[in-house]
């Protein structure tokens, strides 16, 4: 079974990536040693989102467990652009797979600096643009608005030839419209879904549980919703789609691929089992085999129109 694919010009061994912010390879190396590199279960490693300036992240608690899922309010702790390039990039570059760096900035200019500096590094194969942050100028969340997304791409696209993947927010009425804007603006791919806005209360005091007040829901609880958004987006764009949201098994990954995703990311499931993605990949291979397929793509395998 050859699960290899081409994702916006990158040759990947198989279609299983990690969701940004759900697998820290540098920390995992401290826990698992060399085995981390030997068995890294992702074909493209996506970094946690970095920002222009260092961020400490949100106050504790940052996690709340929900039925079949979790809410997080991590708050993008990172060393900032300079710290990332100096400390983290060399260590991530040592991973045995290509590297995609996720970036976010509160302004178009900030995004521009990130893209220019990060894309300028040979260790970086692709960039993911996390557009779920409120824009300081417009006050709007870029990823909720097609026009804002188009404008952002308009200023970033000229800065690099490397693949730009736009990570869409699910907290909007029509993610496909935003995806179309990203495509129009020259994005090489879109990825979705990010977490869904959610709130948890401390059961006794009824005060907000999360230090930041509210957070984002992920995990199997949102899988059917993610599948829906990926299906709608894939139907409306011709650039590749990276599908994620609650993926835990090969069957889940196959469903994502069959509604039009080109690749699939494993997020929260890695928290339960750091090698969850390896199992997802091998179950996927077995499922394709069972169907008499020798590889990707699988989209169009069956009619999935509504």
């Amino acid at each position: 079974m050859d699960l290899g694919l081409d994702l916006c010009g990158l040759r990947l061994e198989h279609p299983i990536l990690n969701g940004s912010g759900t697998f820290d390879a540098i920390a995992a190396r401290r826990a698992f040693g060399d085995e981390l590199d030997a068995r890294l279960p992702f074909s493209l490693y996506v970094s946690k989102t970095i920002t222009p300036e260092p961020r400490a992240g949100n106050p504790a608690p940052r996690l709340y467990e929900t039925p079949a899922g979790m809410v997080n309010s991590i708050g993008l702790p990172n060393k900032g652009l300079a710290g990332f390039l100096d400390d983290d990039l060399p260590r991530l570059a040592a991973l045995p797979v290509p590297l995609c760096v996720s970036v976010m900035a509160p302004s178009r200019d900030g995004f521009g600096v990130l893209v220019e500096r990060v894309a300028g590094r040979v260790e970086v194969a692709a960039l993911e643009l996390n557009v779920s942050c409120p824009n300081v100028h417009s006050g709007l969340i870029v990823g909720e608005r097609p026009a804002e997304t188009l404008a952002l791409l308009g200023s970033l696209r000229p800065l690099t030839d490397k693949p730009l993947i736009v990570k869409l927010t699910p907290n909007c009425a029509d993610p496909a419209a935003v995806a179309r804007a990203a495509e129009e603006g020259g994005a090489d791919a879109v990825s979705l879904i990010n977490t869904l806005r959610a709130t948890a209360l401390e059961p006794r005091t009824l005060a907000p549980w999360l230090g930041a007040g509210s957070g984002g829901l992920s995990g199997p609880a949102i899988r059917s919703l993610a599948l829906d958004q990926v299906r709608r987006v894939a139907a409306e764009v011709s650039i590749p789609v990276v599908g994620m949201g609650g993926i835990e098994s090969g069957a889940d990954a196959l469903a994502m691929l069959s509604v039009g995703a080109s690749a699939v990311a494993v997020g929260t499931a890695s928290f339960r089992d750091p090698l969850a993605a390896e199992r997802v990949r091998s179950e996927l291979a077995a499922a394709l085999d069972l169907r008499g397929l020798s590889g990707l793509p699988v989209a169009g395998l069956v009619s999935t129109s509504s």
Partner: protein
Amino acid sequence: MTERVLAPFGRRRCEVVANRASGGYRIVSALDREGPEPRPGQFYMLATDRWGGPGGRPYLPRAFSVAEVERAGEGVRLDFLLEAVGPGTEALAALREGEALAITGPLGRPFSALGELAPTAAGAILVGGGIGIAPLALLRRELAARGVAQRVLLGFRDRRHAGGLELFACSPAGSPGGRAPRMSSEVRTASEDGHTGHQGYVTDLLAVLLEGDEAAGAAVYACGPPAMLEAVRGLCAAGEVPAELAMEAPMACGFGSCFGCAVPLRGGGYLRLCVDGPVVGADRIETALVAGSGH
């Protein structure tokens, strides 16, 4: 620094070989055929096949310190001391012999050797509160094996929230007649309801010790609820006694990937307790009162 033992990458299944009550707690033992021997203070992420449940929780694995380790023919027997306080610990407490336990670990930074924590210290003071006595059991055995003089102070809320003493006993546990385990002279207890030892806080015992002669040559290892750890931190800071605290924080992953287990550092920023801890130098942190940690 005492090296952490690395975990095999990925989650593995172990067989539960025993599950017995110990006072208000339970001791769950599993045979790990694939993993290494952990160091005192390290922990494992645990889950069972009954995860989920009618309310849909627990979804994430749960962190547990290893309380006792024994080489068994085909692997390592890991003992976990736990208190059923919610869906995860209840599912673990209900495990039967022969059932499977899913584990990832050993994880995290272990306790430092005495010479590393306090090069000139003559002995160690171990301070445990409630279920937090778990990692101290393994630490005590290791320190004893190295010939380190020690005092062990264990505190409990009340009879229902107490147990695990046999892990600190000289006489074998589970001796017939249900007699209380015989404690070596170095172990002293405290309880808020007075059912065992000193009536009051375990930190009362620590305060007395630190006022006495022993303070000068001692270092403290502590594990327990946030308020206890904060009191230990205060006493040690005041007495300029080197101390390491084994802390708790809400954890989703245990291997540094979720950034959920943030503990505020003195001077700003956070550490990730699962990889930078769970054992941290008392002087590194801002407070031991970590929001969201249990009990």
